[in-house]
């Protein structure tokens, strides 16, 4: 059987640097797939020997997109190690900031990163704005940014842009691809929301900045609590959060929810969108404390797609290994014991569907991402995992939005295990936060009437060793940070991040990670126009700078890799 290799590098509209290679058969069905992180930064190694109070600031710089997630994780891992209970006000403030991050991150992902996989912007040019305006009412009671005048203006703006012949960031994409299924009117609606979302995301970012100083890279958490006491004492500030929260929630309900419903309807017959879930094990952690007794989402594990049973997470079963990653040791380690050294083995020359290229050695090592496993199994993490785990746990709020969505779209439950399901779950998670996140602010207001504490005191004993971790769910899924402290400084630090789980390479047992497994079996319309690959990979919301690891480079000679700068 003749096969062909397809290389997609760079996968754009993500955070970080990612390459995907697949092998297709003569019918263009993907037989095998490999995900490669092409960047390594080594932040965990840099953390060694530093003040544990600085960990959050440094880990935050793992990623400027999920910026707050690693900040909170770095601070809370140290708090866990030192045994610090933070004040209730601090807990709620951290939840407010996390809500703001999700309400920013998910819509930006859907519209600006993932959106162009669903929406063929060039088709919007031939839409009838009046028909499009009427159509919008089919998906929302009160659609937003879809009045006939507004859509006409959007269309004229796109036309002027295209007429200039200078497509800039929209140039050379897969426009006209066979797997685009929106009508011109639907494309115009999404194009309008693409622009509106650019405006809304600024407000969502401000929500985080109100208590966090800035977004990206907020700066108001400290080991023991939060520092933004003046903002918390300021009713104008609290009111500003509330107003922005409602504004953003409005967009989520009236545009984001509606557009995903529209996508479900338009793409229901598209095989490449209804497949795309090869690893059916899901793991999620508890997150979003909204008052003294409730969290929005639950923790647990689902195995083999069986929603009938939710297993508890046993932290000791988490390991990472590097059989197919560019590190020299191959055996699995628990994050507290993790130690590896880089061992880059390079690319080789090969033929691909688009011509000659450098290709990976799939039998050997091929990525900077290690392979985390739970009890030896690959796991998918992320909004889909979170929604499925909470749904299967009997979380009533989650069950209601999921059932409503399935009812309104006619999508059956098994179809959730797909590229479409992942995209829908991300929206449903955002909607749940928009619908219930106000409780957090109200709980905080109630508590501030009687309690102004925002920081717990603590002491770091240099004669003691400490060990602690953070486990929580962030926009891309379950995140854990693991820290050992000795002599008052960080002895070892490990981050097991969502994208490491999802973008993981094959392990020693030959099991693929979720990205790779999701692609296998997908039929491509045209291997030189790999939209199906890009769409499925985007549905995971890749965040590659997060995903790469290092622990020790001491005493290892790195493989030689020479590139002639002139041949670039």
């Amino acid at each position, binding site marked *: 059987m003749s096969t062909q290799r397809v*290389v*997609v*590098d*760079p996968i*754009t*509209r993500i*955070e970080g*640097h990612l390459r995907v290679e697949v092998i297709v058969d003569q019918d263009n069905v993907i037989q095998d797939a490999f995900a490669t992180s*092409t*960047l*390594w*930064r*080594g*932040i965990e190694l*840099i953390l060694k*020997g*530093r*003040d544990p*109070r*600085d960990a959050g*600031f*440094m880990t935050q*710089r793992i990623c*400027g997109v999920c*910026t707050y997630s690693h900040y909170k994780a770095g601070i809370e891992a140290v708090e866990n190690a030192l045994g610090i209970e933070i004040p209730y006000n601090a807990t709620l403030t951290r939840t407010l900031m996390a809500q703001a991050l999700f309400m920013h991150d998910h819509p930006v992902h859907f519209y600006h990163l993932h959106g*162009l996989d669903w929406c063929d912007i060039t088709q919007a040019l031939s839409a009838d704005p009046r028909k499009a305006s009427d159509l919008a009412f089919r998906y929302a009671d009160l659609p937003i940014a879809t009045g006939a005048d507004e859509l006409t*203006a959007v269309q004229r*703006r796109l036309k*002027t*842009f295209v007429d200039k012949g200078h497509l800039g*960031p*929209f*140039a050379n994409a*897969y426009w006209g691809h066979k797997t685009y299924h929106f009508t011109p009117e639907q494309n115009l609606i999404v194009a309008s929301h693409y622009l509106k979302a*650019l405006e809304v995301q*600024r407000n969502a970012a401000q929500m985080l*900045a*109100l*208590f966090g*100083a800035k977004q990206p890279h*907020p*700066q108001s958490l*400290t080991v023991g609590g*939060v520092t*933004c*006491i003046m*903002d918390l004492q300021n009713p104008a500030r609290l009111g500003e959060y509330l107003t922005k929260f409602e504004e953003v929630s409005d967009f989520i309900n009236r545009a984001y929810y509606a557009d995903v419903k529209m996508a479900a309807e338009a793409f229901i017959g598209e095989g490449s969108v209804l497949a795309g879930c090869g690893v059916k094990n899901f793991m999620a952690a508890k997150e979003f404390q909204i008052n003294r007794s409730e969290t929005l989402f639950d923790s647990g594990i689902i195995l083999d797609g069986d929603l009938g049973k939710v297993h508890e997470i046993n932290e000791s079963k988490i390991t990472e290994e590097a059989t197919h990653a560019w590190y020299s040791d191959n055996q699995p380690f628990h994050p507290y014991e993790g130690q590896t050294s880089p061992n880059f083995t390079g*690319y080789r020359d090969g033929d691909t569907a*688009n011509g000659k290229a*450098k290709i990976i050695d799939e039998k050997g090592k091929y990525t900077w991402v290690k392979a985390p496993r739970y009890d030896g199994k690959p796991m998918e993490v992320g909004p889909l995992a979170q929604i499925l785990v909470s749904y299967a746990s009997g979380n009533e709020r989650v069950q209601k939005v999921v059932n409503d969505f399935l009812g309104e779209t006619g999508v059956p439950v098994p179809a959730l295990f797909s590229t479409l399901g992942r995209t829908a779950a991300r929206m449903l998670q955002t909607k749940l936060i928009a619908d219930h996140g106000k409780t957090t602010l109200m709980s905080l207001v109630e508590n501030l009437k009687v309690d*102004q504490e*925002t920081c717990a005191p603590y*002491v*770091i004993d*240099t004669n003691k060793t400490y060990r602690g971790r953070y486990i929580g769910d962030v926009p891309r899924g379950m995140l854990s940070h693991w820290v050992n402290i000795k002599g*008052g400084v960080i002895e070892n630090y490990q981050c097991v991040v969502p994208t490491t789980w999802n973008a993981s390479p094959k392990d020693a047992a030959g099991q693929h990670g979720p990205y790779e497994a999701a692609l296998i079996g997908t039929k491509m319309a045209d291997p030189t126009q*790999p939209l199906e690959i890009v769409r499925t990979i985007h549905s995971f919301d890749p965040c590659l*700078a997060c995903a790469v690891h290092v622990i020790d480079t001491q005493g290892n000679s790195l493989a030689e890799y020479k*590139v002639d700068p002139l041949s*670039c």
Partner: protein
Amino acid sequence: MLSGRQELARDGAMSALLRRVESRLAGLQDQAPARSDKVIADEASRSGLTRRDFMKWATAMTAAMSLPPIFAPYVAQAAQVLDRIPVIWLHMAECTGCSESLLRTDAPTIDTLLFDYISLEYHETLMAAAGWQAEANLEHAMETYKGKYVLFVEGGIPAGQSAFYLTIGPQAHTGEAITKKAAAGAAAIFAIGSCSSFGGVQAAKPNPTNAQSLSKVINKPVINVPGCPPSEKNIVGTVLHYVLFGTLPAVDRLGRPKWAYEFRIHDLCERRGRFDAGEFVERFGDDGAKKGYCLYKVGCKGPYTYNNCSREKFNQHTSWPIQAGHGCIGCSEPDFWDVMAPFEEPRADNLFGPPFGSGADATADKVGIFLLSVTGVAIATHAVLTTIEGSFRNPKDEQDNSSPSDK
């Protein structure tokens, strides 16, 4: 007061400068591809912006760039001709925080920037094309706009023997090779963020990937726009400065535009009065924190850090670290991860035993350090007196034996 003669001389210099700006803008208007429908009012209304809003923004940007108000109309005009300039934005070893910051720009909004003002030829986070098609866009832009495009680089660059820590594209070129090639054909080069300006977090000790700043990798002038991330104002303002004057902006000794990085955080800090009055937060969450006292003693690096955060803030003036009650971590200074850490300890305390050797002081203002250590002594005296009065407890004193700062 200026004398009559000085005033005349200043006016003469000013009109010469204005003439230069006018001719520069006229030159840009003529540059291809010219748009036939170029009327400012149309531009503004098409992008959902009233002319009034636009002029308001231009005035704000003019002030932000420390230019006299007379420049406001030119700033507005400069923004109008931005689409004459193709932009290539490269991502190296980074976290995308700088791109995210750019996304927050409000007037011109990011869509106005993308649709009406610049031609973003290559930007991995925003562009629609992927894979071979993305690489073709880069090649096409470097070829077609050779000598005309503006290059932005975000991220540190794994260099030399370590260049393989970053490869991009089907041919797996290293980030270093791509940067060198893109820089060769660029009309102007901007290092956006502390990573490309100074190496950033991946270059912190022990710099496992040999990440370097952009200026160490190429042999052309680089304007550094540091910050982790730089504010949206500093990114957009830097571009406008280039368009407006047709030259690179005046920079300080670290290659940072003076209009944004001339003053210390400390100079214009909203809590400066508290510092001068000797009113300090002793620990996060204490009464001083509730009253907005100075954060120096809980580690604020504002006195050593040059940036306009105190004036421009972040996210459309929403807030900035000191407003949120946390000290500045010095993120727009070289090697701040090593030099400014621990972030929650005053730096004067570290002066005599810097965590990473004596090199730590070399990059900061030595006079400032000296003054601050004197201040540090004064603060310590103040602290002792206050402790005697029993009005507060200082956890730092309790922890002194266990302080991790003396690594």
